[in-house]
Structures are given as structure tokens and as C-alpha cells.
């Protein structure tokens, strides 16, 4: 009970308070910013949201403009990106995790994939422009956009899939092999189904990042004023973030309101994607634990 001892305890308690306040701020600041974004978006944009807004083409008059081509373009991009990135990403992860030998080469690849996941998206856009649009002659098409976004999300898909595969115990793989299954049969029917909740959640989160991307699509050449719907994977296209970007840069106040409304649509789409990822994971996990 010396004074020195009490003094120390008091300092400890104060440090504790400071630290927990800092941590609390780290939680609340982003939440408040998100809330402000939602409230501003809602208050400015909600008046514009309606069937007309969702089903109209862009227009020179802000009251008549809508997001139909952008919405359809985003959905098409999402589906195509998923079709390209998921099989490639999961396949690469299965190869690295289940077939690949542990060694220096594997670590080298691992490091590079982690680095790829951190490359700025505009760089992927330039890559897409060079490879898909020009070299492979896809032009400024939906397919070129989807391929570019697929490149962007693939490293993340590989990483989350490998992590999910690592959670499957070796005892399960051995159990399947001991029943006379080939390696592929064991992976396909036992290991992958077990890893599926993790793969799906991670991949959906990666995909939801892709539909918010603007920079790579600008570089690949998404249009900003589209008065038709894409009629194939080789058609020119636009997407929600591009449409928002375009409206925000207009001087008229009306277009800013349109942009706010489009942001709301994009946010709702993103949040519902993330929500579906969580629900899906819970359902799959429940089925396993019974």
C-alpha cells in the first residue's frame, strides 16, 4: 500500500481508459461515416427512387434519366466475372493446396498471389486494356470488362479458397482415400463440400468488391452514356459506378440527386450480396453440425 504502488495502479487504469477509447473510436468513426453516407444518400436520393428510375435510360433531362443500362450492365458484369473468376480461382487454389508440393516454388507463388491481391485496381484496368481489349481483340465489350474484373478478384478467391481448404482436417481426406476414392473423387465430393461455406462467403465478398469498382472499367472503356441494353457478351456496356461517376461530374443539381439515388441502389445491392453471403454460410454450417 505504498504511495508509489497506488500511483502505478492509477496510471495503469488511465492508460486502459485511453486505449479503450481509441479502440472505440476506431469502431465508431467508420460506422458514423457510413451512416452519414446512408442518411445523405437517403435524404437526397430517395425521392428519385422508383420504378421509372430503375427502368429508364439515361437522358439529357435529369428528371427523365434512369439507371436501367447501368443496372443491367452491373448485373451482367457480376455474373460473367463470377463465371470466370470462381472456377479459375478455386481450381488454382485446389491445385496449390491439394496437389502442389510444399517447397520454395509453392512459397514463391503464394507470395505473388498475396501481392497481386494488393495491386491497385487501375493497374488491372491497364492490363485489361492491353490484353483483353487490344491483344485479344475483345474490344470495349462486356466480356473484356468481366475478364478484367475477374483478374482483379481472382487472387482474393484463391486466398480465401486455400484458407477454407486448410480448415478441412487431413483425417477427412484420409478417410475418403481409404474407401478407395481417387484423389480427385475425395476432393470433389468430400473436401470441397466441406470447404464450400468458406469459399462461398469469401468469394461473394470479393465479388461485391468487384461490382463497386470504377477505375478498371473506365480504363477498359465502359461507356458513360448508353441508351441500349447489352445484347451479348461482345456488346458495349456501362455499369453503376460509371453512371454515378458521370452524374456526379455534371453541373446541374438534378443529376447530383440522381447520383445519390444510384448510390443508394448500389449500396443496397452490395449490402444484400454481403447479407446473402452470411446467410449462405450459416445455412451450410448448420447443415453440417445438425
Amino acid at each position, binding site marked *: 500500500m505504498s504511495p508509489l504502488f497506488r500511483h502505478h495502479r492509477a496510471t495503469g487504469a488511465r492508460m486502459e481508459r485511453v486505449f479503450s477509447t481509441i479502440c472505440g473510436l476506431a469502431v465508431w468513426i467508420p460506422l458514423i461515416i457510413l451512416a452519414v453516407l446512408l442518411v445523405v444518400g437517403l435524404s437526397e436520393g430517395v425521392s428519385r427512387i422508383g420504378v421509372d428510375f430503375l427502368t429508364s435510360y439515361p437522358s439529357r433531362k435529369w428528371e427523365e434519366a434512369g439507371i436501367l443500362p447501368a443496372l443491367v450492365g452491373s448485373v451482367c458484369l457480376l455474373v460473367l466475372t463470377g463465371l470466370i473468376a470462381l472456377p479459375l480461382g478455386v481450381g488454382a487454389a485446389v491445385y496449390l493446396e491439394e496437389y502442389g508440393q510444399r517447397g520454395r516454388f509453392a512459397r514463391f507463388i503464394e507470395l505473388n498471389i498475396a501481392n497481386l491481391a494488393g495491386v491497385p485496381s487501375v493497374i488491372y484496368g491497364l492490363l485489361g486494356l492491353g490484353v483483353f481489349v487490344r491483344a485479344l481483340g475483345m474490344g470495349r465489350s462486356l466480356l473484356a470488362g468481366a475478364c478484367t474484373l475477374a483478374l482483379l478478384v481472382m487472387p482474393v478467391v484463391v486466398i480465401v479458397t486455400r484458407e477454407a481448404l486448410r480448415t478441412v482436417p487431413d483425417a477427412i481426406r484420409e*478417410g475418403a482415400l*481409404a474407401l478407395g476414392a481417387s484423389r480427385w473423387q475425395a476432393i470433389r465430393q468430400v473436401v470441397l463440400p466441406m470447404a464450400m461455406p468458406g469459399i462461398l462467403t469469401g468469394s461473394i465478398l470479393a465479388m461485391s468488391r468487384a461490382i463497386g469498382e470504377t477505375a478498371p472499367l473506365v480504363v477498359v472503356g465502359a461507356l458513360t452514356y448508353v441508351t441500349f441494353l447489352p445484347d451479348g457478351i461482345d456488346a458495349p456496356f456501362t455499369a453503376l459506378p460509371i453512371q454515378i461517376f458521370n452524374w456526379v461530374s455534371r453541373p446541374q443539381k438534378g443529376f447530383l440527386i440522381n447520383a445519390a439515388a444510384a448510390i443508394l441502389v448500389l449500396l443496397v445491392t452490395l449490402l444484400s450480396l454481403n447479407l446473402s453471403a452470411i446467410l449462405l454460410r450459416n445455412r451450410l454450417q448448420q447443415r453440417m453440425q445438425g
Partner: protein
Amino acid sequence: MTSDAGSTALSVSTLRAGFGAAEILKGINLNIRSQQVTAIIGPSGCGKSTFIRTLNRMHETSGEAWVKGTVMLDGQDIYAPEVDPVLLRRRVGMVFQKPNPFPSMSIRENVLAGLRLTHRLKADAADAVVEQALTRAALWGEVKDRLAAPGLSLSGGQQQRLCIARALAVEPSVLLMDEPCSALDPIATARIEDLIHVLRERYTIVIVTHSMQQAARVSNQTAFFLMGELVEVDETSRVFSSPKDPRTEDYITGRFG
């Protein structure tokens, strides 16, 4: 396929195996008799698990693993180049130390897993296969009303019997058991041991165990392994009553291990 009880089912000669530079089995010669139980005992690290895993070529699924020597199954060397280990494992089933039912599958699906995985299940035969395998594993009565429940919803002992049923559904002639009771309580252990008594009428069984009492209770012949070598193999009663080798005697009397 199965020969007379007591004839040689598996004949192991000069078997050496290991990982990389480490040699774990140093020349094993052992005959495993048909429709009898052979127990493998020995202290930790003596190579008994490695040995049992060479009998269905599971050993080689780990990195850097190697095997030399021959293992004859019904007159065929399982390490001959033309033998497909995948097909071999359908004739030599295995039950592991920890119960490992497939978590994404129901009880019924677990039993059928071996046939489904390898695309050999006839749709109209499924019900019969499930009932027969679970009956032989002494689990049918406990689970017949909840076949659709997840395999993991069972108790540890039931899960291990489910794994036995899963192995039996593939219709092997040999069943390898790698310390099948080490994760179970005494009551569940007793049930598995009872089951082994029944199963040996139909299957050739090799069981690795660290419990000498268990070896004495369930097996016909016992092999004692020490530091990668087979020290002694004989009728179980003789190994435990009058062992020939002093090292065996030291081990079974509890002087080490």
C-alpha cells in the same frame, strides 16, 4: 476371394518403409491369417501405425514416404507396378484412430460414401447396403430411425461404428484398425471389441493398439514391434503367457513403454 479361416491372407516379407532419410520399418516378415484378428502392439514410435498403413498403401499418401519389400494379398504383390492403390483400398478397408465421419453427410450418406465416391452405387441397392453395413457394425438399431441426421450428431463411439459401417459397405476382405478405441470411453471401447469378435467371422482384421489388455481380449495372434522391428509374433495366449523374447516380456510386464 476369401480363403479358409486361418490360411494366409496377407504375407509381408522384408518390408522396409520410412519418410525421406528416416527408416521406420526395418525389414518386417509377418503372415496375417485369414478371418482372424492380428494385433500389433508396441511402444509409441515403434512403427506399428506405419506398418498398418503400408498394408493398404495409405503410407505413401504422405510426402516423402517410401516402401520397399513385398506384401502379398491373395497371391498378388500389392506393391507391383501394375497395382492401382485406389482399387487395393476397396479390398483393404481402414478405420482410423479418431472417428472421422464426413461432416457434410448424413448417417446414411456416410455409409454409402465409399460406393458413391467411386460411382459404384446402384440406386435400388442403396437401402439394402445401408441396412446391412450398419447391422454388421452393430449400429442399425440405434440409428435406423434417424438415418438422415448428420453423422456428427452421433456420440464418439457411435461415430466410430459408423466409420466401421462405412468401411464395410465397400465390401473389403481385410479391415485395418489403427488404434480404433484410443479416442473412446471404456463402454464404447467394449462395444467395439464385441463387434470385432463378430466381424472376424467374415473379415481378416489387423488392429494396432497401445493397450495390451485389448490385444489379449480381441486377437488370435499378436505381433510385438519395437523400434521398427518385429520382435515376436505368436498366438496371443502364448505371447502374453510365455513370451520367447525377453524384450517382449519386459514390455508386457510393464517394465517400459
